[in-house]
């Protein structure tokens, strides 16, 4: 009789497990959140497939998300997170019984919440150091993207996944990575279509397309995680050094000019690199479409200098006074001025020192207070020729 009762009970439990799984909750009450989750329509055994009967083993086989989410799992398997032994499904999606759709504002993978989710690891300075990455969370949160997304709730602003992808995140060294040097323009261009169009036809874009790893992409100038408003004076003041990071000679010659002096004193209304050269659509002067092509100079200089004519634009904003071959007039002016300064100041500095020594310390030093001229060493008994 007793065994009959047990058998009946088992039957009911098994039937229940098969049906809705609600009876699991009589033991696992804390898993009730499943109902409200994105998986709410599934039964417990839909995921816990290894549990066939009650009582089930203490440690049932772990749930395999891949049995349903094969694409995501395959991508994750190829990703840097698997390669580094880092994140699993629940690290990002949270507790398996409360997973929400990424469209749900409460979801850990909702775009506005994603930076915080990724930041659990990528805002950890120790982890960042261990895996050799930047601690990017705080940088991102202060960036124009982070601010727009998390403060203003602007959902079109780039979140982590917008640039890095989600399950299939690859190291930027990987040629297939969305953040690989060659792929950055397309990645940013997903949203910034206008700049991408300009950039693609620019000399930088042409070089990147031709496979150059030295030519800059978006992040070389704008950074990746610290992107700020380009209209901010603070950022604009840094751009000269940014361009100069590659264009060292041009930076050096720019430094000699009034434009640079003014800029160094913190005045933003002066010509910096991109005021003349443009930025996304930058082209070499040899290209007729370039802002600094000879035919376009009067227009470019004229943006600031009213009445700039063909003669005015013969001014060279990168003239090098050390270069006697290309700038002979400037070079020899510099040589002349240096000689003039050295000879005049040198001679009269010596003159001054000698005078000082003679009048102070030498024998027959000048009388300090009123002495008649006669009797001094400049006495009238030694008249000088007229």
């Amino acid at each position, binding site marked *: 009789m007793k065994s009959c009762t047990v058998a009946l009970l088992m039957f009911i439990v098994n039937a229940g497990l098969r049906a809705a799984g609600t009876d699991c909750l009589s033991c696992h009450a804390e898993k009730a959140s499943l109902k409200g989750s994105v998986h709410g329509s599934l039964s417990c055994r839909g995921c816990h497939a290894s549990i066939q009967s009650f009582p089930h083993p203490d440690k049932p086989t772990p749930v395999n998300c891949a049995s349903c989410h094969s694409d995501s799992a395959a991508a994750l398997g190829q990703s840097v997170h698997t390669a580094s032994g880092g994140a699993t499904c629940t690290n990002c999606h949270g507790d398996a019984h409360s997973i929400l759709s990424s469209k749900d504002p409460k979801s850990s993978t909702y775009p506005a919440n994603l930076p915080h989710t990724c930041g659990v690891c990528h805002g950890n300075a120790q982890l960042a150091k261990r895996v050799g990455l930047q601690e990017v969370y705080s940088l991102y949160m202060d960036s124009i993207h982070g601010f727009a997304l998390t403060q203003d709730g602007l959902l079109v602003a780039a979140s982590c996944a917008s640039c890095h992808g989600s399950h299939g995140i690859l190291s930027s060294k990987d040629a297939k990575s969305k953040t690989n040097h060659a792929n950055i323009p397309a990645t940013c261009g997903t949203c910034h279509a206008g700049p991408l169009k300009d950039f693609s036809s620019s000399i930088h874009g042409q070089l990147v397309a031709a496979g150059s790893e030295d030519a800059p992409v978006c992040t070389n100038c704008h950074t990746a995680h610290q992107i700020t408003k380009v209209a901010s004076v603070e950022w604009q003041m840094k751009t000269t050094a940014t361009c100069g990071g590659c264009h060292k000679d041009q930076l050096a010659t720019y430094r000699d000019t*009034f434009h640079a002096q003014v800029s160094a*004193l913190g005045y933003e209304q002066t010509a910096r690199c991109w005021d003349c050269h443009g930025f996304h659509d930058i082209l070499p002067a040899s290209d007729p479409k370039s802002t600094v092509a000879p035919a376009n100079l009067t227009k470019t200089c004229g943006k600031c200098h009213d009445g700039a004519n063909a003669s005015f634009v013969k*001014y060279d904003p990168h*003239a090098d006074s050390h270069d006697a071959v290309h700038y002979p007039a400037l070079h020899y002016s*510099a040589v002349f001025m240096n000689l003039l300064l050295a000879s005049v100041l040198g001679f009269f500095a010596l003159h001054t020192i000698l005078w000082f020594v003679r009048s102070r310390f030498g024998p027959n030093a000048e009388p300090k207070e009123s002495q008649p001229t006669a009797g001094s060493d400049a006495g009238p008994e030694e*008249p000088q020729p007229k």
Partner: protein
Amino acid sequence: MEDAKARYYVRFSLAQRYLHGALFTTFLGLAFTGMMLRFSTAHYMQTLAKAVGGFGAVLFFHKFFAFWLTVAFLIHVADIVYRVAAKREWGLLYGPSSMVPRWKDIQDLFGNLKWFLHLGAKPRIDRYGYWDKLDYWGVFWGMGIIGFSGYAMWFGSFFARLIPGSWLNIALLIHGEEAILATGWIFVIHFFNTHLRSDNFPMDLTIFTGRLSEEELQRLHPEEYERLVKTGGLNALAAEAPPRWLNNFGRVIGTTAVLAGVIMLILGTVAFVRG
């Protein structure tokens, strides 16, 4: 110098003293604002520029002082031309009272060098020493070089119709270099020659009071004194002793100017050496 019993003689007219005042005020202002531009990469120059009110203010004051220096300079030139052309004051062009260099200046230079080295007697200076004339003509040279290049840059697009634009590259170069020469000259050589050397130390107040004592005239300008005694022109120059307030005024203004110059000299030199 404030000995009431001593006799005093006029050396500079009131107009000349005002001219010197305008000259050194604008010069110091130009040096101060120009220094920040010339050494704009030095951190303390950037701080200083911010303190003044940013680059806009720096450039405004630079042009402001440049304008008034130009006005003062042109008034002086017009005055000289008028006095020579209309009033026939030929003494302005040659002779002992003229600023025009003459053979005696060369002799005085070599005489002074010999005296420095104990090889001869101290030369007897007339109204103007060769260093005074260099001070004077230095202003003309400086106005020509710095003034022209400055205005060429100020009105760049206008000047480009008259001169090739590539000259604007040269303009900035010589503007800055000549400014270093001018400030180096004034803050080292002029200050020493006219104020700090032992027979004038600590300050020659003549440019502020306009007059010097008989003793100073004899000691500093023996040749002129002797000439005035011989020609009997001395009495015509006799003046009251400078009032105490005027002496003190001269000391305060002069010391301030010299200190300002020396401070700028140090700031500029440190920035120059650091590159």
